[in-house]
Structures are given as C-alpha cells and as structure tokens.
C-alpha cells in the first residue's frame, strides 16, 4: 500500500471512531478495537514530562485489554451512573493526521484532536484537546485499533471525563 492510501485508510478509521463516539454507537465503537488493545491517557508527571510507564506512573485511563472499554460502555448503558444520566453531547474534531509508520499489516498514525462536551444538566460546555497516537492492525481485510494513546494537553480537568471525552 502506498503512503497516500495508507494515510487515507488510517484517517478514515480515526474519523469513523470519532463519529461512533459522538453518536454513542457503542457496539460499533468497541468493534473497532482488537481484544488485546491498549487504551491509554497518560498523566503529566511534571509540567514538561508525560508519564511513560503505566506500571509505575499514574494514568488518567489505562487498559491493556478491551474489557476495560467494555466496562465503560456497560456503565454508561446501565443507567446506574449519574455522571452519564443524561449522557453529555460530544463533538470530536480530528486534524493534522500524519502517517508515522506503515507496513502491510500495521499503521502508526499521529493526529491532533479536540472534543467539545456539552453537559445537558449544567447547560455548559468544556473542551479538551491533545494529540493522538494510534496503532492500527489489519484483521480479516479491515483495519482495527490495537493501541490508542490520547495525550491531554489541558489537564486541568472538568468534573467528569470518560472514554467519550478524549
């Protein structure tokens, strides 16, 4: 696959993921991830240093398998979490998508993101923004997410953040 085609395929998956989150199409969103995926939102350990090792440093969210994401979806759907009752409205915007590395079976992508979140309850919006690093793998003719790192640049956080806020 040439670089342009790889970038187009990778970008399409990132945009699809954003759309599924914004439409709360949770099953289709989970299906974008391989079962042994990594989903990681590292903390900043100093003003200029990101956490590098989830085993020894704090993360905002760290899962080494998809089951952590499945817990999140279960929680949102359960109606048992007041933080998502009602579910806030979100808008993901992804830009500056770059291809960092590509083989026939893997794509490494970097991108910039921002998410606007509107809390229906509080009648107020906030925006989180940062950088993405995605690793995609080819499975049965489709690209799936094997690793998603969402680096939060504005880490003075609002009162609720979740998988849909990054």
């Amino acid at each position: 696959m040439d670089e342009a085609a790889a970038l187009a395929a990778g970008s399409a998956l990132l945009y699809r993921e954003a759309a599924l989150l914004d439409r709360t199409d949770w099953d289709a969103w989970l299906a974008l991830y391989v079962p042994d995926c990594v989903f990681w939102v590292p903390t900043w350990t100093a003003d200029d240093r990101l956490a590098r090792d989830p085993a020894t440093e704090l993360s905002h969210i760290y899962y080494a398998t998809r089951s952590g994401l499945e817990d999140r979806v279960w929680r949102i759907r359960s109606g048992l979490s007041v933080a998502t009752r009602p579910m806030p409205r979100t808008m993901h915007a992804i830009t500056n998508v770059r291809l960092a590395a590509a083989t026939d079976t893997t794509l490494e992508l970097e991108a910039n993101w921002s998410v606007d979140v509107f809390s229906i309850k509080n009648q107020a919006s906030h925006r989180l923004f940062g950088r993405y690093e995605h690793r995609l793998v080819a499975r049965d003719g489709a690209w799936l997410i094997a690793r998603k790192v969402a680096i939060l640049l504005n880490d003075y956080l609002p009162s609720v953040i979740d998988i849909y806020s990054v």
Partner: protein
Amino acid sequence: MTTIADLGRYVVDDPARGVFHVHREIFHDPAIFELEMAAIFEGTWIFVALESQVPRPFDFFCATIGRQPIILIRDAAGALHGLFNSCRHKGSRVCHTETGSAELLICPYHAWSYAPDGTNRSIKDARHAHAGAAFADEDHDLQRVPRLASYRGMVFASLNPDVPPLEDWLGDMRVLIDLVMDQGEHGMELVPGRTVYSYGANWKLQTENGMDPYHLTSTHPSFIEIVSRRQDEARDLAAIRSRDFNKSLEARSGCFTFPHGHSCVWTENPAPEQKPLYEGLDALRRRVGEFRAQWMLNLRNLTLYPSVQLADSESLLLRVIRPLAVDRTEMRLYCMGPVGEAPAARARRIRQHEDFFNVSGLATPDDTTVYEDCQHGFKARAIAYHQGYARGTGLVERAPVELTRRLGIAPLETVIGSFQVQQEVQYWPMYRQWRRLVEAALARGAPSARAAE
C-alpha cells in the same frame, strides 16, 4: 446583617436534645464564602505538600493557601521554608512552575533575586538608584509564611500566626496518620503523576463525601456492579481486586471524632487480600505488630480539617481540597505507596487508584455530578437546614472503649456498629470547627462582607 451571635443558627449542636443541624446557607452564600476563606483557609493549618515532593536542596513546590500563592522550598542545608510567591518590588510570581529546583529565585520583571530562605540577594542597579536611606532600610526579603511545620512528612502552613503547634492541632489524629506513614519500611512516597480538576459546587461537599459511607451503595452502584462482574467472569481486570462492597455491608464499622475538626471513618476489611500492602503482610506484622498491621489493612478515611483527606480504601489516596468560589472547588489527587513496593503490588495500587478515584475513573465522576446536583438544589432557598446528621447518634460513646484504648486514641465521640449504620457523626467536628474558626475570625476583626452591610 450577620453578627457573631447570629452564627449559632448555621451550626446547631445540641447533644442533650440529640440535635445536630447544619444550615444550607453556608453552602451557597458568597458572603459566607469570603468569611470562610479568611477564617478557615487563611486562619488555620492548611496542607501544602509532602516533604518527599521537595526531596533535595533547592527543590521547590508551589501551592496556594486559601487564596494566596506560596512556595515551599529547601535551602542549601535542606531546611524547608514557606514564602509568599510574590516579588517584593511589583508583585510578580518568582516561581513559575508547580515543581522545580532553584538556587536563586529571580523575578522575571526587574530581576530582584532571592535566596531559598527568602533573603533578598540583589536589587538590579541598586547602586544607581538614588532611592534614599528609607528604601535601603526596608526589608526587601520575600515575605515568609507565618507558620510552617511538618508531621511525618506532611507539610502544613498557616497564614494565621496564632494557631496551636501542629502536633497539638493534629492531636490523636497523629496515631491514625502513623498507620499510613508506617506502612512502608523505608517510608512512603507519591506515585509520579497526579490529577487536578474542579467541580461546580461548594468545598464542604467534598469534606463530607470523602467521609461518607452512606452514599456508596446509592451513588456508586455501577462501580459495585462492575467489580462483581469482573470477578464473576474471571476477567483480567479482576486482578485490580477493588473492594467487594457487598461483603463490606456486614463488616464492623464506625468513626472517631477529634478536636480541631478532624475525624476518621473506618470499616474492618472483609477482604484484606485486595490491598497491595497484603503481599508483605508477614514482614509488616513483624515490624508493626499484629494489631497495627490489621488496622493498616482496614478501610480508613481521614480528614485533617479542612484541607486534606487520606483515603486508605481503594489504593491509598491523598486528596487536597482548595475552594475557588462558593460554588467551585479544586481537587488535587495523589496516589501514595510504600517506598520499595514490589512491582506487581505497585501496578495494582495504581490501577485501583485510577479505577475508583480518578475523575476519569468509575466512581468519582458520580460524586462530582452529585455535588453539582446538590449545588443546583441549594437554589431552593426556602429550605433552611440539611437533614440526617443524626445517623448514628444512638451509638455514640464519649468515654474510652476497648478499641480506642488499644489504638491509643481518645476521641471526642466513638461510633462502633455494622457498616449499615452509615453514621454521620464524623461530620460533627467539621462544623463545630467551622463555627469556632468563623467566630474567632470575626472576633479578631476579619473582614466580613455581611457584617459591613
């Protein structure tokens, strides 16, 4: 107009009638908030940092006491100093990052410089200033924070010089702090990284909620369900092994209250093996004894009123509370663990912290949402008082009991019952201290927007 005499209606503490009432106005009145900042957050000991956050000479940490920016910094000999983070010349901050290291604090504006003990080192072009003798006679040092003291590595500062010595102020809470700080044979440390967030509600919702056993089953049912689903399905995340709340319901539980606003809630741990500390249990028992080791494994939440909470439940949380406005509060969360902890235990400790305490986790967002719901509800000004502070009143012991004797503490009140009592007695010292501090501040002439009306 509010006068000192009127303050009595905000906190009604009448044990003879079995009454403890707190007025809702103290959660939503901006004038009372201004008074609280002067009286409480600028009137008593406030947590700054752990000594381990400034481990070496010249290391600094920037914090805020009440509304005022300060620097905690070590000098060349390692002694700690508390300084206001404001150049004496035109007021600029002289430290610009949350943490760092500086042998000299240099103002970015006109380059006045200061030693880590606050001593002025230079005034740019002073020789050519023709500023006169009166200027030369002035004290140009960074202003020092009136009181700074540490207990077991926890550094506190007070902007009010007239406070009891820190050890007296902590009182028997020291015994309970020791149960945290003695967990590591080589001391305790913070895991790198932290969470800072704000929520849209009054700070006292956090001081209460951090000590509230009553909300767990009703605010966090999704967390409780997820923990049991992980265990039932033998999922990889079952390894996080957070508390099984269903088991806790039958456990022996209670609270201790102390002077100066402090309290402790506790539950005997029905599943101590969930704690990372459990892995070194034999060595721990040999070092601290069977009874203290068991208490280190029990679930304990402490409030060192008003600014800091230690939650030794899921993981070991250090939570710093800073009010920003009557309806806005900043939270800083740190994860604490023993120095030299085994890698697997450390990783599990971190996952437990993230899972439960993070504002991006599975429990705290439900708390913060409820705080904001309460703040919205306070707009119902027609309602004067909260209800429910009476829970547990019938179980209050004021004399020592076997448990408090063994722990070596003399609480004002002790409650021991099943977890399902879910007492609210632990809030009493907070509001008593609230009233004492506010009264004391008004007596020494603290500005009160209300009183000036």
